[in-house]
C-alpha cells in the first residue's frame, strides 16, 4: 500500500551514504557546528511536524518540551547519572508534562489550542527562570560533560566530546526519529492523525477516540522533542532559559513551514536551510534581521507550501506537462 | 442584458466551467438546471465576479464585467443570492437587510421603501426583525437571503438553488415569491436548480449544465418533454 518508487529509494540511499562520509568533507569546525545543530533541530522540527503537520494541532509548547528535555538531562548528568539514562528519562518527563498539559489543552481547538499551549510554554519558561534551586535560574546549568562514553570491547570507549562523535550521535537519533515517524505516518494508525487534522467531527463519528489519538501524537512528538533537547544540552554543555523560550518554538515553526509541512523531508530541509541562510546573512550585520524578516514574508507568500511542498508541486506540474506532451505526440 | 461568451472558469488546478455561452434578455425568467457539482454555483460566482473566468467574456448591458470587482458589479445591478445563504449570523434581521442595500448608501428614503417592500413579500421578516439571523431555521434564512438580495433593487437577480434542503411547503412558498418578484417588479431572474420540477414550472426558458458544459437550452415546455431531461431530472 505504502511503497516508494525506486528512484526515491536510490536518492535516500545516496543521501545516507553522503551523510556517513560527511565529516571527511566538512571544511572547518564552524561548518561542522552548524551541521550538527541543524541535524538536532531537524529532529525537533520533525517531531513538531507530527503534532502540527500531520495531526493539525498547533502546539506552541513544542520548544518548551525541547527545553524540558535539555533541563532534565542537565540536572541528571550534573547529579552524576549517565547520559544514557538521563536521555530517555527526559523524554518520559516531557511526555508526562505533555499529558498533563494535554488534559487542559485538548479541550480546545484551533487557535485556542495554540494559545493554551503557548501559555503553558510561557509558564514552563518562567519556572525554569525562577525555580533557582533546581534550574539554576537565569544562569542555568553549565559546565556539563559531553555524553557519557560508551565502553566498547577491543576499540576502547566511544567518546562524545569531539565534533565527529557528536555528529554521528545526532545523525543516528535523527535517522531513528525519521524511521519512527515514517512507520507511524504510513500506516492506518497514522492515518487517524491526518483524519483528525482533516475533519475532527467526522473522525469522532467514525469511532476514533480523538482525544486519545491527539494525546498519543502529542506524546510521541514531545518525547522526541525532549530527546533532541537532551542532546542539545550535552552538545552545548550548558542550559539556560533560552533553551525553553518561545523563540525556540517559533524557530521550529519557521523551519517546518518554510521546509514544507506534513512532509517528512520538509522538516529536515527547513531545519537545514534556515540556519544556513541566517549564517550566510551575517555579512549584513545590522540589516540582517531586517532582511530576514522581509525574506520570511516573501517566502511564505511565494511558497505557501514551503520549500519541499513547492518542489512537489513543480514535480507534479512537470509530470502533468510530460503527460500532456506525450498525449499530443500520440495524437499527431 | 446578460451575455456570456465562451466562458471557462478554473478553481485552483481544476477546470470547472468549459465554454459556456448564454444570453438573457431584460425581464426574462430563466433557469439553469444541473446536478450537484455540475458547476452551477461556479458559473453564478463567475457572473457575480467572485471568480474570474480564465477565458471568455461576460457582458452586462453592453459593459464587460468579467474583470470588475464584485462590489462594482453589484453597483451595476447584478446581485447574487448565494448558495448557502451567506448571511451575517450575528447581526439582526433588519441589519442584514440594510446591509443588502449597501450600494444605495446615503439614499435613506429609497432604503426605507425597499425595506417595506421586502417586509411585504416576507411578513415573517418584519415580525422578527430584531432576531439574530443565525438563529433562524433554514427556510427562514433562505427568505432573508432573498430579501437581502432584493434590498438594492437589482435589475438582475441570480438565485442559486433557493430550494435546497427545504421542506416541500417552504419550497412552494419561495417559488411563489420569486415568480411574484419577476412579474411585479420586472426583475430579470436567473435561477439555478436541481429541483427541475419546481424550476421548469415557474420559469420560461432554461439551460442544462452537465460537468461544466452547457448541453441543452430551450423553452421550459420543450425541456419538460425532452427524454433525457425527463429521465435525469424529473423522474417517472
Amino acid at each position, binding site marked *: 500500500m505504502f511503497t516508494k518508487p525506486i528512484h526515491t529509494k536510490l536518492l535516500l540511499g545516496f543521501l545516507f551514504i553522503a551523510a556517513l562520509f560527511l565529516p571527511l568533507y566538512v571544511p572547518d569546525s*564552524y561548518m561542522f557546528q552548524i551541521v550538527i545543530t541543524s541535524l538536532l533541530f531537524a529532529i525537533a522540527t520533525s517531531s513538531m511536524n507530527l503534532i502540527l503537520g500531520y495531526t493539525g494541532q498547533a502546539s506552541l509548547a513544542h520548544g518548551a518540551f525541547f527545553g524540558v528535555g535539555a533541563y532534565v538531562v542537565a540536572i541528571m548528568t550534573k547529579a552524576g547519572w549517565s547520559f544514557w539514562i538521563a536521555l530517555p528519562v527526559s523524554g518520559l518527563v516531557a511526555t508526562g508534562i505533555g499529558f498533563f498539559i494535554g488534559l487542559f489543552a485538548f479541550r480546545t481547538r484551533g487557535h485556542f489550542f495554540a494559545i493554551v499551549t503557548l501559555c503553558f510554554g510561557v509558564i514552563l519558561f518562567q519556572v525554569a527562570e525562577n525555580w533557582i534551586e533546581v534550574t539554576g*535560574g*537565569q544562569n542555568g546549568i*553549565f*559546565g556539563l560533560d559531553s555524553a557519557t562514553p560508551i565502553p566498547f570491547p577491543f576499540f576502547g570507549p566511544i567518546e562524545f566530546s569531539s565534533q565527529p562523535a557528536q555528529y554521528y550521535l545526532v545523525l543516528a537519533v535523527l535517522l531513528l526519529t525519521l524511521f519512527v515517524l515514517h512507520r507511524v505516518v504510513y500506516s492506518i494508525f497514522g492515518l487517524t492523525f491526518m483524519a483528525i487534522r482533516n475533519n475532527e467531527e467526522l473522525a469522532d463519528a467514525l469511532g476514533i477516540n480523538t482525544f486519545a489519538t491527539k494525546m498519543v501524537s502529542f506524546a510521541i512528538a514531545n518525547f522526541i522533542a525532549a530527546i533532541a533537547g537532551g542532546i542539545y544540552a550535552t552538545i552545548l*554543555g550548558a542550559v539556560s532559559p533560552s533553551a525553553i523560550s518561545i523563540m525556540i518554538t517559533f524557530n521550529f515553526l519557521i523551519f517546518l513551514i518554510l521546509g514544507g509541512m506534513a512532509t517528512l523531508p520538509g522538516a529536515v530541509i527547513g531545519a537545514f536551510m534556515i540556519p544556513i541562510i541566517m549564517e550566510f546573512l551575517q555579512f549584513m550585520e545590522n540589516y540582517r534581521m531586517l532582511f530576514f524578516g522581509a525574506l520570511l514574508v516573501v517566502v511564505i507568500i511565494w511558497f505557501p507550501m514551503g520549500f519541499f511542498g513547492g518542489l512537489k508541486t513543480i514535480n507534479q506540474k512537470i509530470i502533468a506537462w510530460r503527460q500532456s506532451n506525450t498525449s499530443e505526440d500520440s495524437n499527431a | 442584458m446578460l451575455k456570456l461568451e465562451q466562458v471557462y472558469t478554473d478553481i485552483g488546478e481544476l477546470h470547472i466551467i468549459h465554454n459556456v455561452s448564454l444570453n438573457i434578455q431584460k425581464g426574462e425568467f430563466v433557469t439553469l438546471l444541473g446536478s450537484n457539482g455540475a458547476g452551477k454555483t461556479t458559473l453564478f460566482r463567475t457572473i457575480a465576479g467572485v471568480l474570474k473566468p480564465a477565458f471568455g467574456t461576460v457582458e452586462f448591458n453592453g459593459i464587460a464585467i468579467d474583470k470588475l470587482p464584485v462590489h462594482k458589479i453589484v453597483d451595476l445591478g447584478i446581485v447574487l443570492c448565494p448558495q448557502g445563504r451567506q448571511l451575517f449570523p450575528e447581526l439582526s434581521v433588519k441589519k442584514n437587510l440594510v446591509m443588502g442595500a449597501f450600494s444605495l448608501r446615503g439614499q435613506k428614503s429609497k432604503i426605507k421603501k425597499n425595506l417595506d417592500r421586502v417586509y411585504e413579500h416576507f411578513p415573517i421578516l418584519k415580525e422578527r426583525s430584531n432576531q439574530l439571523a443565525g438563529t433562524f431555521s433554514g427556510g427562514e434564512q433562505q427568505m432573508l437571503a432573498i430579501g437581502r438580495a432584493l434590498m438594492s433593487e437589482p435589475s438582475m437577480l441570480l438565485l442559486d438553488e433557493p430550494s435546497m434542503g427545504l421542506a416541500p411547503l417552504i419550497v412552494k412558498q419561495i417559488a411563489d415569491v420569486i415568480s411574484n418578484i419577476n412579474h411585479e417588479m420586472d426583475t430579470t431572474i436567473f435561477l439555478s436548480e436541481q429541483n427541475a420540477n419546481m424550476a421548469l414550472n415557474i420559469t420560461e426558458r432554461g439551460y442544462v449544465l452537465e460537468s461544466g458544459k452547457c448541453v441543452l437550452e430551450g423553452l421550459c415546455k420543450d425541456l419538460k418533454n425532452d427524454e433525457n431531461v425527463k429521465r435525469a431530472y424529473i423522474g417517472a
Partner: protein
Amino acid sequence: YAKGHTVMIGFTGPLSGPAAQYGRDNVNGLEMGIQDINAAGGITVGGKNYKFALKTYDDHIDPTAAVNNARRLRSRDGARFIFNPVFNTIAPMMQINQQKGSEFLMMAYTSAPEVDAMKNPNTIAIPPPFSVYVGSYVKYALEKGWKKCAMVVTLGAYGDGWRKEFESAWIKAGGEIVADQPANYYTETDFSAQLSAALAKKPDFMLIGGPSATTGLVIEQARNLGFKGEFFMVDQAKLNYIAEVNFNNDLTKMNGVTGTARPRDLAEEEVIEPFLKRCLKDYGRSATSENLLNYGAIRILAAAMEKAGTVEDITAIKAAIPEVLPMDAKINLLPFIDLWGSRFILPGTIQKIENGQYTVPTTTFWWTKSDADFKKAVSSIPDIGNTNVNVPLEGYAK
C-alpha cells in the same frame, strides 16, 4: 592589512533585541581600543608588525548562535580572542575554548562569580565581581543605621546573583529584607505593582537596578509613589546615563541614589576627559563602564602579546598579563592591577548623588586581605582623589 599581519579580535553578543545597547557599548569600547592600538603603530612581535582588527557577530543571547559565532570567529576569521558580555552565552563558549586545534581566549565581560568557579584556564573575566559593591553598600547602610531593605531588582542571572548576594550580606550584618519584588527590566516598563508592594513595607532603602533607562523609571515611579528613602543600584545601571536619559541631566531628581561611579570619576581627569568626548562624538552617547573596561582589556591584551612574543599562543599571552600590569594610565585609563585566577583585578568604585551633585566616590580594594595589602594597593594605583575603603571579599581566592 595583509594576511598574517593582523590580530583578529572577535566579539559575539547581543546586537539586537532588548540587550542590544549593552552589546553595542561593549563593541564600542573594543573599537576605540583597537583604533588606538593601530594608531600607535600596532604591535611588534617577532620582528613583524601587527595591526588589530575586530569582527562582531550578533547572537541575541542565544547560546546556539553564540557557539556558532565563536566557531566561525575561530575557524573562519582566525580570532583567538573572543569577547562576550553575557554569562548565558559565555558558559557554552567555555565548553569549546579548550578543544584541541581551536582554542581561544574567552574574554568574558561579566561580573557573575560563576565564571571564576569554572576555573577555565582559557578565560579572562573583565569587570570586578559584583559582590565587590555589595560590601560597600552594606557598610554604608550600617553606618546610616538603616534596617529595612526592599529589593526591586531585575530578573535574570545577573539580578538573581545580586539579590542573593546582597540578601545574605545584609541579613548577616543584622539587616532585614522586607520585600523582594524582582521585575523583568528588559520587557516591563511599569513597576507600580512591585513598587507599591515594596513600599507598603516602609523600607529605609531600596536595592534596585538592571539596564539603566529602566532603572531610571523605577526611581521615578518609586518617587511618584511617595518613597523618600535612598536607592542602591546594581552595577549594571549607570548614574550618568540615567541622569541623561531619564532626567534630562537634572540631578536633583536623583538625590539619594548610589551606584557605580560615573566614568569621569574612575580615572584621572587628563586621560578620561578626551575619552569621554570621543565617545560622545563617535557614538553619540556618554561613555559607560563597558566602554572603559573593554578598552582597557584590549590594550592589556596587546601589551601582553608583545611581552609574550606571540600573537597565537594564548596561554603564553595570558601568562604575560601580570607582567604588563599595572599599565600607564595614559594607555589604559583604569587601574587594572593584576590577574586573579581568571579575572582582572580592578577596584570597585561607587558614588552617590546628593543635593543635585555627584559626591566623591568610594573605592573598594576588595582583593586585599590585610592592612598592609591595602596600603600597598592604594599606593600602587594612580591617585584619582577617591576615598578608599577596604572591604575584603570573602572566599575570593586566587
